[in-house]
């Protein structure tokens, strides 16, 4: 067993760290969210130059053949620095959908543009009434000559605000909530009939609800096999969850760092509050949670590429459950240990806490993944 980074991983982790600490600080980030486009195009371009946008793609397409562990290394830094760029939606989600199901033409066209930093994408898998059940799809497509006409709504799409193209799950046959009969379509975000309700999420990253009203797409917009998208959707969501959990871990590390530092410098009753045993124990719990979460994040990243849906799903659901509970509770402790300061928006703690909340909920909350783990483990 080896839980360490390879030499290469150390290298790109370090250069990413450097890039993000040079280009980001609290003020820069908040200005981007409050008055700007919600991300930095310069940083995105720098990602392209560093090859980060090429990381998971095959070498013959200009990529580096990276694994989900490589993605984890990147995502941890994105979380630690609260980077706003749509890496997970574009590279991890759309990237894996294209890799898993794309035609040669789709791959050649789109992956090259992702790698060069000229194309941002998002994947829309949930709907206003579906909660976390990705099979609960009411958005429909009907064939019309050589085209399809799509109508329906997709909810809380990460990176949906910035995406040039959106991969949408659509019911082409079967009953609502059936895993059969689902198809992925690549839709141009500016196509006629597409409208977006865009917003900032808790952590400042952008998202959107996407409404499709009689959107006409050619048959070549179908990604993968008609009616057979379910396994691809699951795999993409697992990749996304693994990456978001890694981001959360990076943020978690900062939550603990900030809190430990505060325990040392804040004095009450004539001593640092870190001298109070009850606070020491809370802090120790936070570190215990962090270390165990880290182990599970390693596991889910190592399994996220697996074609074995059950093995992969169990690993990813484990991490979602563990971070969703332990990380959540640690965030509450972190605020508590800070007292009033932990409540202020000016202090950065809340930004990390909110970043972790996004990872906790998107693609399924604790209850969702508990049930999923149970189904994958105890039923066959």
């Amino acid at each position: 067993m080896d839980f360490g980074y390879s030499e290469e991983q150390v290298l790109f982790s370090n250069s990413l760290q450097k890039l993000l600490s040079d280009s980001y600080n609290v003020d820069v980030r908040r200005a981007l969210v409050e008055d700007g486009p919600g991300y930095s195009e310069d940083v995105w371009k720098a990602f392209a130059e560093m090859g980060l946008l090429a990381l998971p793609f095959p070498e013959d397409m200009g990529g580096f053949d990276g694994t989900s562990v490589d993605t984890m290394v990147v995502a941890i830094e994105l979380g630690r620095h609260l980077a706003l760029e749509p890496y997970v939606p574009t590279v991890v989600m759309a990237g894996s959908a294209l890799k898993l199901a794309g035609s040669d033409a789709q791959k050649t066209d789109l992956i090259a543009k992702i790698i060069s930093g000229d194309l941002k994408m998002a994947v829309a898998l949930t709907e206003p009434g579906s909660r976390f059940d990705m099979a609960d799809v009411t958005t429909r497509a009907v064939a019309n000559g050589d085209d399809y006409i799509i109508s329906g709504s997709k909810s809380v799409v990460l990176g949906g605000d910035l995406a040039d193209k959106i991969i949408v799950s659509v019911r082409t046959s079967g009953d609502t909530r059936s895993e059969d009969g689902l198809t992925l379509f690549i839709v141009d975000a500016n196509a006629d009939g597409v409208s977006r309700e865009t917003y900032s999420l808790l952590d400042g990253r952008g998202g959107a609800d996407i409404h499709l009203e009689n959107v006409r797409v050619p048959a070549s917009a179908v990604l993968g096999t008609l009616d057979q998208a379910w396994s691809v959707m699951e795999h993409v969501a697992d990749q996304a969850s693994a990456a978001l959990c890694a981001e959360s871990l990076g943020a978690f590390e900062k939550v603990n760092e900030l809190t430990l530092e505060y325990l040392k410098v804040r004095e009450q009753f004539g001593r640092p509050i870190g001298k109070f045993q009850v606070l020491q124990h809370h802090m120790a719990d936070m570190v215990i949670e962090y270390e165990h979460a880290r182990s599970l994040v390693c596991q889910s990243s190592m399994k996220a590429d697996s074609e074995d849906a059950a093995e992969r799903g169990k690993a990813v659901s484990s991490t979602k459950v563990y971070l969703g509970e332990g990380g959540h509770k640690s965030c509450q402790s972190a605020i508590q240990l800070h007292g009033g300061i932990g409540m202020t928006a000016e202090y950065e703690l809340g930004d990390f806490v909110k970043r972790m909340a996004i990872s906790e909920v998107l693609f399924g909350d604790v209850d969702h993944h508990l049930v999923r783990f149970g189904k994958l483990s105890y039923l066959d």
Partner: protein
Amino acid sequence: MDLNYSAEEEAFRQEVRTFLKEKFPQDIGDKTRAGKRYSNVDNGRWQAALYANGWDVPSWPVEHGGTNWTPVQADIFDEECFAVGAPRMVPFGTRLVGPVITNFGSDAQKKKYLPAIRNGDHFWCQGFSEPGAGSDLASLKTRAVLDGDEWVVNGQKTWTSSAQYANWIFCLVRTNTEVKNQEGISFLLIDMATPGVTVRPIVLISGEAPVNEVFLEDVRVPKENLVGEVDMGWTYAKFLLGNERTGIAGVGAGKADLVELKRIARVERKNGKPMIEDPLFQARLSRLEIDLKALELTNMRMLSEVGDGNPGAFASMLKIRGSELQQRFSELQMEATGAYALPWQQGPLEADWNGKAVGPDHAAPRAPLYYDRRKTTIYGGSTEVQKNIITKSLLGL
């Protein structure tokens, strides 16, 4: 033993209900249910309705407008108010400084301040905490020095709730540096319009700015604004902080939270059915409802067994458990809302918003409320400090 309210208590409950039905401004209740923010005007209208009925300062002595309610009556009143969505009464005038003045103030102070609290002329805020003095309040440094007929005050207060609305602030100030921390503190009433008082808002992780920093720079305060005796302020502050007998547990507010939670869980759907039918969710909801019942009964026991056991430590227990429940309600409400709790929407929380909110109606307030409620285990004596009280005064450890 008897779990039932007496006939008189039930009659009182009816009286309160009738009053609320006739006099409580419905639009304020609508705001509460929609999770919108109150304006200071809303608070004023509610206070005026109570005032007109003689119910604005129930805990005061009768000669100053109090009602002489039993603790159970006071509790029934709170519960009924929350049930219709009445705002939590801004406590600073009516519940905090008012009782200090009725107990320790001079006749002149009673005459000047008490009616002004009731008719809304004076809106108070509480200047206790300082950047360096939170849990260790007695280490406060804001200094008041007598110069002729005036105290000259220098220092900084922080976390001052409602200072943006208030025109008066009651402060703990250091008047003696030669003695033990607790023995050199005085209780001073300061007109916020006095030159040298500056208020700066603090934005919280909820997105709201309900608290402020208050800077005091050579603020000249008439000598007669000191309450009671010089250097005795700590005693009055302890009285003020311990004066709240009812309402600590927040049972009434908890019941209103529970109603809202169930409403959300009936609207939200999971696996094609209302969320409230999901067994995992039910388990969480049941646990919360059971804990609320335990709190309610414990609160009633405390109210009815006055003098039995140690009320100080009992109050700490109720504060700890009540504040945790407030947090858990907001947490489960957010959880029930799912991914639609993730868009950060401040606009829909404003009363005059007429845009379209993202997701279902109940979504926008969820995350702000969840983050706001983290405060409940920090202020009013943090959970850790309350547990220190229990271990010392009840358990003798």
